[in-house]
């Protein structure tokens, strides 16, 4: 079985940050984007997307951690953070190509998306249905379909 992670469709995303509010509330008991494991990015004027951990096959964050605080869970594919070992050095934050890791402002250790045990709470709140939990295969299927639809519509013109 392929791994699943939270993806965002930038054509649908409006940058409303609702996912961030829901995530921080579910994980930390209060509303604060700085505590969210998923983050929105807005590039002016109108590009919006949400980013969360992609649960990479061979995660660079795990490899980069000098204290071996990070590991990949064999069963769930998520990244496990050993709170005892992590000292908030942020080396993994720098290493991650997607900016999917954040430093918890109070605990001063790192946090990242754990897909809420396979049922990410942010997804059903997304008002434009831009968010979904998908496998790489599902993502590529969608891209293939979209490419064909565009092609067909161009030919029929």
């Amino acid at each position, binding site marked *: 079985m392929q791994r699943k992670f939270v993806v965002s469709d930038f054509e649908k995303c409006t940058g409303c940050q*609702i996912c961030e509010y829901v995530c921080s509330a579910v994980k930390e008991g209060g509303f604060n984007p700085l505590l969210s494991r998923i983050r929105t990015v807005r590039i002016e*004027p109108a590009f919006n997307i949400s980013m969360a951990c992609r649960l990479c096959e061979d995660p660079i964050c795990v490899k980069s951690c000098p204290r071996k605080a990070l590991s990949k869970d064999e069963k769930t594919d998520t990244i496990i953070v050993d709170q005892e070992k992590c000292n908030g050095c942020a080396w993994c934050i720098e290493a991650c190509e997607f900016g999917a890791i954040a430093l918890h402002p109070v605990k001063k250790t790192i946090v990242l998306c754990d897909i809420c045990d396979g049922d990410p709470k942010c997804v059903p709140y997304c*008002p434009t249905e831009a968010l979904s939990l998908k496998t790489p295969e599902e993502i590529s299927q969608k891209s293939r379909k979209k490419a064909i639809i565009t092609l067909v519509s161009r030919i029929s013109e």
Partner: protein
Amino acid sequence: MYGYSGRMLIVDLTSKKTKIEAIPETFCRKFIGGNGFSISFLYEHQTPGIDPLSPDNVLVFAVGPFCGTVIPTNAKYVVQAKSPLTGFQGKSIGSSFWSQAFRRAGYDALLIKGRAEKPTYLFIDDDIIEFRDAKELWGTNCWETDRIIKDTIGDDNVRLAAIGPAGENLVRFASIISDHYHEDDGRTGMGAVMGSKQLKAVAVRGSKTVEVAKLDELLDLCKEYNRKVIKGLTSTIMKDLGTIGTGMEYLSNGATPIRNFQSTDAFKEPITISEDIRKISTEWMREQYVHKSIACAGCPIGCSHIDFIKAGPYKGVAYNMEYQGMYALGTNCGIWYLPAIVKAGQLCDTLGMDVISTGVVIAWAMECFEKGILTSKDTEGVDLSFGNHEALMEIIPKIANRDGLGNILAEGVKRASEKIGKGSEKFAMHSKGLEFPGFDVRWLKATALSFAVSTRGADHISASIFGPEIRGRINRFRFEKGEGEFVAEKENNLILYDLFMICRFSGDLWMNVYSDLAHLYALVTGIPLTTEELRTTGERVWNMEKAYNIREGWTRKDDSLPSRVFNDPIPDGPAKGSVLSKEEFDFMLDDYYAARGWTRDGMPTKKKLIELGLNDVAKEVGV
């Protein structure tokens, strides 16, 4: 206290001193937040009779109790001060990411006094308040200011409310802009007040967590609300087209003013250009432009749409076009070419000016030009003919920089027409000095009343009665007894949105706005509110604003409408011949004041104010 920070930040720019004042729970319950807070603080801290552009004016920013939670459309904030346009209460409601950052910094309100010695911007970094030098920023436009300050601090979590050159140059209808391409605080010249204080921007970074009383229940309810709101009728239109969606209804029904209220028939002349606003539909917009919906923080609707112009003289321009901009800078100036309106709107936003006021004052100048009251000599060669969109691009920066004729127009249409004279006062479209929004009130009679009695001048959102009127829910051609009460009730009801600081476009969510909001309030704050209490709250705040105006010298004659509304019947369109008579208007005012429980002169009685719990106000202004 859940929901609230319970703190107001007071900043004195003259002495560079800051102070924190506690906001007690009893006060929160009585005024809810947002507009309720801002008018109370303004009333308390500002001395009556001051010059709005002097250091004595007090500028108040406030957010609501839902701010920073997951309740749909909670990102609104209000800015209030004495208006340099009207001399009465000035107020503008914006929506962005600023409000939530401010809330997370740990405040419900910000009160700014005095005047900085030199250009300054304020940086509120949670509990650290810095007065930073803005000398280098003076003269830069709003969007550049946003980028420069974010880059200087080096953090995109910093959010800004900034003014542009128009605010610096004290253009009386200058606005405050927060975040790129977003709804701004446009109306009543709050940007000029900021400029008069030499305050370029208020930058905020907030890292605190917003906690609520009943988190799980709130999360469940909001999941439902999110689903509901995206399926609602209003929000569907807003999602697809934004306010221009409903705007097409107004335009097609002869409610949208054309050429400074000289026509309402949008289809009298044939469509000859390819990018004409009369062609607007969702599909057409998607075909013609990159038409992308973007949302304010925490909003599931996303009514803002960025439209990129792909070709022609305005190629590359991107801007969020709204109905009021389409009217003011478009139809009212005789311009139907969409890319030009988008460009003009972008100019207003970057320079920091209200699009409605800008459009109305230019349309007035165009009519002066048409009638020979202003000549090419006065305009320094600019051909101010209706429909000339190139002139628009020339004159807008002149207003912002107070250059030539722009210096006169920057005073607003009331003062400009008094200065130019020659009968031009008769077609200066304003009430209390605030320029008219895009509705021809000669046939929308209840709307006419609401524009006249609004505490901030010609205001389309105080009662928002144009919708029911245009759709025929009430008689739009004749004012009937009892409509005064309808207007008053709408005002009391709608001002609640501005106390909780949620968006007017959230209307699809509420079965009963009073009980639904009371329920949400209890989940957020833990404070039980009754429906009855809320009904009184709206009325209380409305009376408070009225009391403020009375303290500034308001009398019945200030609730007025432009001469054109009384003397020039609508020449064409579905409401051809409609006009408002003075007798009818007096009857409307009587009906409205009576419904409000005020005297025939429009003065709140001591009894009424005490009934609303405004005992101190009753002593000062009650009759």
